C-alpha cells in the first residue's frame, strides 16, 4: 500500500474496517431507517474512508453509520478508499467529513480538537458545550460528597401550613378558645393582621381534648 492515498475504490471484507473508538457521530432512529432504505434500494454508492497510517490501520475515518447499516443488511463486502494520516488529523477529518448533516455527541466532539479547529470545521460556539472559565472549573472540581456542613433532609422532612379562615366573631372566639390561642397585645392598633400558629402535634392534643369534652 502506497503512503500517498489513491482515490481508487477497493472492495473489502465487511469485517476489515474498524469503527474508531472516539467517533462522536450519532444517528436518530428516523435517519437510520432512511439510510437503510437507501442502501437497500441503491446499494453502498459512497465508499467508506479507512486509515492506513501505522498503528491506525483499517480504522474507519468516515462511514460508521453506513458500515453499521451494511452489517445489519447482511452485506459481505463494502467499498472503501484509503487515507494516510496520523491520529490527530484522523480525528479532525472524521469531524470534517461528517459535519454536514451529522448529528454529534458534543461532549465527545470537544475532546477531539481545540475550539479554534472545531470552528474552522464549521461548528459554532452555540453548538459546542459551554467553555468553563477558570472559576467554573474550580467550582466543578470541588468535592461535594463530603461538605463541611452536609444538609440532608430528615425522614419526610417538609414544612408547610394551612390557614383557618373564620367569617364571624363567634366562630373566631370558638377557634380561639378551642385551640387556646393567646392574646397578642402588640396588635392593638395593628394594620397587618394577626397570625397565630398552632403546631400540628399541639393541634391534635387540643382537638382530642375538645372532642372528649363534646
Amino acid at each position: 500500500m502506497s503512503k500517498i492515498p489513491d482515490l481508487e475504490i477497493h472492495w473489502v471484507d465487511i469485517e476489515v474496517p474498524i469503527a474508531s473508538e472516539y467517533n462522536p457521530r450519532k444517528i436518530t432512529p428516523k435517519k437510520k431507517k432512511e439510510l437503510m432504505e437507501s442502501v437497500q434500494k441503491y446499494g453502498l454508492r459512497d465508499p467508506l474512508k479507512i486509515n492506513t497510517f501505522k498503528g491506525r490501520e483499517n480504522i474507519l475515518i468516515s462511514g460508521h453509520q453506513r458500515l453499521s447499516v451494511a452489517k445489519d443488511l447482511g452485506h459481505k463486502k463494502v467499498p472503501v478508499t484509503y487515507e494516510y494520516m496520523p491520529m490527530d488529523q484522523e480525528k479532525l477529518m472524521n469531524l470534517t467529513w461528517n459535519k454536514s448533516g451529522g448529528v454529534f455527541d458534543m461532549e465527545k466532539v470537544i475532546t477531539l480538537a481545540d475550539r479554534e479547529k472545531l470552528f474552522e470545521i464549521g461548528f459554532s460556539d452555540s453548538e459546542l458545550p459551554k467553555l468553563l472559565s477558570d472559576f467554573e472549573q474550580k467550582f466543578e472540581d470541588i468535592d461535594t460528597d463530603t461538605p463541611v456542613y452536609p444538609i440532608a433532609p430528615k425522614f419526610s422532612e417538609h414544612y408547610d401550613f394551612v390557614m383557618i379562615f373564620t367569617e364571624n366573631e363567634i366562630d373566631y372566639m370558638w377557634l380561639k378558645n378551642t385551640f387556646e390561642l393567646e392574646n397578642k397585645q402588640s396588635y392593638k392598633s395593628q394594620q397587618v393582621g394577626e397570625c397565630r400558629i398552632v403546631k400540628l402535634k399541639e393541634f391534635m392534643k387540643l382537638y382530642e381534648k375538645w372532642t372528649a369534652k363534646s
Partner: protein
Amino acid sequence: MDSKIVVLSKGRPDRILTKTSVTDKFILVVPHDEVDQYKEYNKDLEIIAQPQEVRGITMARQFVLDHFESVFMLDDDIDYVRKMYTEEGEPYKVTNQEMILQIIEQNESIAKQCGAKMFGFTHVRRPVAYNPMKPFSFTGFLNGSHTGFLKGHNLKYDPRLIEGEDHFISAYNVYKNRFMIIDNRYAFFTKDNWKSNGGCSMDRNDENLKRDTLLLRELFGECVHIKNATNMKKNLFEGERTLKFPYK
C-alpha cells in the same frame, strides 16, 4: 417585639436611607472611628461603636449577633419596602413606618410561634415571581440586609467570608436549625449599591465574589450553585451564587 432593630452602617453618616424608607426607630452600629460623624447627623439615635478589631461586613454582623439576643438587622441603604402581591396599578410601596414595623413584628411573631430561629423577607425582586399560594417559605436565602435572629439561634458567621456572609448564614441556619420563616409577601429593596461608595460595597469585588462562592461550595456542597443568566437577568457577575436545599 423582642428583637432590637439594628442598622449596620459605614461611611454614610449623612445618607442612612433606611431612616426615611423603613423606620427611624433603630440602633445604629458603626465603626468606632466614625461614631462622631454619625452622632453629628443622627442625634436622636442610639449609636454603638464596633471595636477596632471588627473589620468587614461579616465581622460586623457577628458583632451584632454577639451583642443582641434577638435582633432584626437592616442595612442602611434600604430604598423602600414593597408589597409583592399587588394587582397592576395598585400602590405597591409601603410608606407607613408604623405598618412596616408591624410587618416585621408579625414575621417575628410567626417565627417564634413556629420555633424558627431566623426570619426575614423574600429576596426576589420581581413581583411576577410571587406565588400567592405560597406566602411563606421555610428554607431558602435570606438577604443579610433585612434578616432577623431569635434567641437561641446558635449561629455564628464564618469569618473567612468577605461578602457571602448572608448565603453562609442562611445555609448554616438550615444545617443547624432546619428551617426559617421567609415572608414572601414583602420585599425590602436596597439601592443598587454593588459598587457605589460606602457600606458593604467597600468589601465587594469580583475576586471576593468568586472566592466566597468556592468556599461556600466547599462548606455546603450541592446546596450551592452558580447562578445562571435568565431572560429577566442577563448580566450576571461571574461567581454569583444561589442556594438550593434538598427539602422545603
